[in-house]
């Protein structure tokens, strides 16, 4: 079972490197790591999907808190969270093939965002398994290029994810509106 963690970190140079270096140093296995800006320009947000072989979310979370720039960590594995990733898939598409690719895209609520004489770019934003399915269905057409962002995650409603580390997120040092 893969685990998904959300970490908010200070938006400073080198913080991504610190997190990546920590995962390497502790031998934690990352499936995907997504970093981006948030509603607060001083804070970045990471969504970390990891293979927990040999470790636990509690261990990962506690180690992340050892980094001075990490503000908050939530475990959203098996929680009511929305997980989405975005994929861009460049597929061989002769004018005759375009119709079938377009109808596949419609089923997945994907979009054709670029059309060239012999290929198209399909853009899909969905959960990982749906993206997997679409990729497999497009594969016979000939995938030229594929890029996936990895998951981004957000809890539904106002309930936060699980915080394993005692005291974390409780002392008001950081507030993201959940507490």
């Amino acid at each position, binding site marked *: 079972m893969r685990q998904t963690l959300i970490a908010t970190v200070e938006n400073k140079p080198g913080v991504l490197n610190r997190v990546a270096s920590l995962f390497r140093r502790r031998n934690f296995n990352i499936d995907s790591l997504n970093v981006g800006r948030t509603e607060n320009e001083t804070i970045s947000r990471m969504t970390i999907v990891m293979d927990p072989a040999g470790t636990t979310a509690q261990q990962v979370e506690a180690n992340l*808190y050892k980094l001075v720039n*990490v503000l908050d960590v939530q475990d959203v594995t098996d929680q009511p969270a929305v997980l989405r990733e975005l994929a861009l898939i460049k597929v061989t598409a002769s004018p005759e093939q375009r119709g079938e690719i377009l109808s596949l895209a419609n089923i997945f609520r994907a979009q054709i965002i670029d059309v060239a004489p012999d290929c198209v770019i399909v853009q899909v934003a969905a959960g990982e398994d749906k993206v997997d399915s679409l990729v497999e269905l497009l594969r016979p057409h000939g995938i030229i290029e594929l890029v996936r962002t990895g998951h981004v995650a957000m809890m539904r409603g106002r309930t936060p994810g699980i915080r394993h*580390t*005692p005291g974390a997120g409780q002392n008001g040092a950081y507030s993201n509106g959940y507490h």
Partner: protein
Amino acid sequence: MVKTGAEILWECLIREGVEIVFGYPGGAIMPVYDAMLNYPVHHVLVRHEQGATYMADGYARATGKVGVCMATSGPGATNLVTGIAAAMMDSVPMVCITGQVAAHLIGGDAFQETDVTGITQPITKHNYLITRADEIAQVVREAFYIARSGRPGPVVIDMCKNAQVEKAEFVYPETIHLPGYRPPQHASLKDLQNAAALIKTAQRPVILAGHGVLKSGAMPELRDFALKTQTPVAMTLLGLGALPASHPLSLGMMGMHGEAYCNNAIQQADLLLAFGMRFDDRVTGNLRTYAPRARKIHVEIDPSEIHKNVHVDVPLVGDLKTVLTDLAPLIEPADHEEWLDQIAEWKADTEARDILAWANDGRLYVSHVVRDLWQTMGQELILATDVGQHQMWTAQYYKLEQPYRWLTSGGAGAMGYGFPAAMGAWFGHKDKEAWAIVGDGGFQMTQAELATAVQEGANVKIAIMNNNFLGMVRQWQEFFFEKRYSAVNMTSPDFVKLADAYGIPARRVTQPEEVAEAIAFARSTPGPVLLEFVVEKEEAVYPMVPAGADLDAMIRRPIRQPAAAAN
């Protein structure tokens, strides 16, 4: 007030209480060294930057203050790396300031440019790259706070040369804003109650006291807890001194070279109370068979240590002194008479065996030297060791009654540590003698600091245990590699002549009966003194739990005395 970056650095260091800096100048740190002349700071010029880190480490361990070392960019900074890693492993508060090439040159492979923040990231608690003078005050304030608070550790400040030269308005920051850094203090009441319930029902409890006891200053709370609940206390290598060795509840050192009765008690316990220790592989042996019948309570300030090596029943995350204070009212007095009797029986067996195992063949052993030093000096010294056999013998035979007197590289096992660490500690306690018990191998890694000792008039006594071998590696080759000795035979200089070249008084000792007199000579001679003890070449440290073996599957001390002596 407008000041240069270098001046701002010193203004901040003075405000942090820094009185002494161990370092080595060079191109990229020259503005800082120039400004230093105007500030009331003593600078110790080392002979290799690694020596500066070990001195800062020894100073920090002996005084509880933050040790400060300084080096230039490139090779100066990379020479600090081993000492920083050792400080990280042993949670020693240290701030290392390194010069860096000017900000506009970074990334261009300029002369003596090295990615110091990149290199030191995994071996520091935190690190900083300063590119502008107006960043300095805030960074230095944060660095010292991070180094000394929570679980202490080393912090590196890499300072670009332009930031040292440029001017900025100096305002000492009154507050620190570190939203992501909040060391835990109190454990939750629910966890404390859970712990108290386990403590109440325990029949065979053992306390495992680690370095955290000293870091937290929780010696009185530890003693009170142990007395009230009549719980024996085993100590880690770095926890020695947490409870006096002569205390009736002391079990001495646990682990690979711990005494049999101590390790037996841990294996037979039904409750382990781990206080500020991290279940290192050198103290647990085989994790699958470790203390199989024991419930476990882990008091620890670093949450990442919880369940890392050993799964525990009740984690109490917080400062040890605070947690034990909070726990005290929830604990009822107990007397574990049967359990303590059982341990006393094991202890008597060990003591009888010790007498039979004591080397008495007219030749000189490290244990003789350590015993004589202990009998002469008692607790009136700061004692540092290097790494290896002599380190373990000193831990076993030097009975420590007080904390903060014992300096040894535990987690990292960094050879070369002992002599510079003793010197660093002496700078913090000039009223005391600092003794460094070192091996012939480790001493030669940092012997260049002999010149530093002379230049500073350091009252450091160096006791070299010379067996012309890398003794611990030799022992492992004897036990585990069919005595195939590979690269352990060591030719050393004439240490007495070497000392003479530095103008350091020295003696060579080859007989057990000469030891006490040599110690007296060292004590009565002011300043650095070197004693070379030519000891038995192929002696092994016992007892020993082979790496990865069960904790109670130890190789005991061989009996040497004739059977008649047993009666």
